[in-house]
């Protein structure tokens, strides 16, 4: 498991309009591209050989599965802001302000009175 690498995915994609667009349009192919050429990047010249996603992490990212990511201990802020970036507008148009955020919370209700998975990396 690589919480760090999942967080790196969320961090690099949420902050870049072009990556975000590709992650919305075709998550499966974008996640593959990310693993190949974006995730390993340390800077324009250097590549890291250290990190990789597990099958479960890859699947959660491909499926925009923020519940699974929460349960893996992805950072709550990155996990929220990433999927707000994708779903806030369409939900707003359909069901009004904060409807995505409330659905997000509803899907996590089984954690309500428990200790959440740690976000420590």
């Amino acid at each position, binding site marked *: 498991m690589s919480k*760090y690498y999942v967080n*790196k995915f969320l*961090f690099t994609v*949420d*902050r870049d309009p072009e990556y975000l667009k590709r992650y919305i349009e075709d998550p499966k192919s974008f996640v593959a591209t990310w693993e190949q050429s974006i995730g390993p990047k340390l800077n324009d010249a250097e590549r890291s050989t250290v990190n990789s996603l597990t099958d479960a992490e890859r699947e959660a990212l491909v499926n925009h599965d923020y519940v699974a990511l929460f349960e893996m201990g992805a950072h709550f802020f990155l996990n*929220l802001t990433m999927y707000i*970036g994708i779903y806030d507008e369409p939900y707003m148009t359909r069901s009004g302000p904060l409807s995505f955020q409330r659905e997000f*919370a509803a899907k996590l209700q*089984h954690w309500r009175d428990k200790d*959440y998975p740690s976000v420590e990396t």
Partner: protein
Amino acid sequence: MAQLVATLASTHHPFYLKATTMPPEQQMPQAPEWKRKVEAYRETLAKTKPDILVMIGSDHFHQIFLDNCPQFLIGKAPRYDATFYNEEREFGIPKYVLEGDEAMSRFMHQHLMDQDFDFAFSNELKIDHSIICPIITVRPQNDLPVVPIYTNIFAPPLPSPRRFYNLGRAIRKAIDDYPSDSRVAAIGTGHLSLELGGPRQFMETGPDPVFDRQAIEWLRNGDIEAILDNVTHESMIKSGNATQGFLNFILMLGVAGPENADYVDNLDLFHTMEAYFTWYPKEQAA
């Protein structure tokens, strides 16, 4: 020596600007009251006529990430760009450029190091909404140089609540010792109970209204003993997964010293309690 003229500690709400500037017929019912409260709070700073703002906030994974994550960091740059693409997208916050004050940054960095706070520093720091929100709320004309300080409230393990308080005390001492005739205001933002990306987010109130009311009373009374007796990392997380933003309030109480606040206001918003505090140093309170 420089003079600390005011210490402000408040919540930062990235939607304030959007909520209060959209067409009135689309605004939420509390928007006019929110705006009134913020403008009244702004006056508590304006009347002290500051020349420099020492601003304490916390980067939300905008410039700082888990590959290189300082606990405490000071900006040392002539100017600071502000607002990242994803903040514009999500909150509608515009871009800003803040003037820096390199001389004061350099002095404070050295002074804090001499007080055993081994700060990281940045000569090219882009500021995020933890510092731009208070510019929007308390100094929208953005006409003063700033010394930005970032704390880690996000990526555990975090420094202890007592360490945040002691850092506030050290920042106060550095301001008091700054050889200049400037009038300095210290402005910090954080959160009361807050949940983000968890089951208690975006409820009718914040995730722990009991903590919120208690925290406001502690700060009103400058009761650092009660805070340090009651607030731990575990207790904050129980109050909401992002409640460690309260650490910045503890830091600001350190800047002010364990005194009653001179101005206290709050507003119960749909998913969070907003709170606004100002302390004036006692010798200038009259």
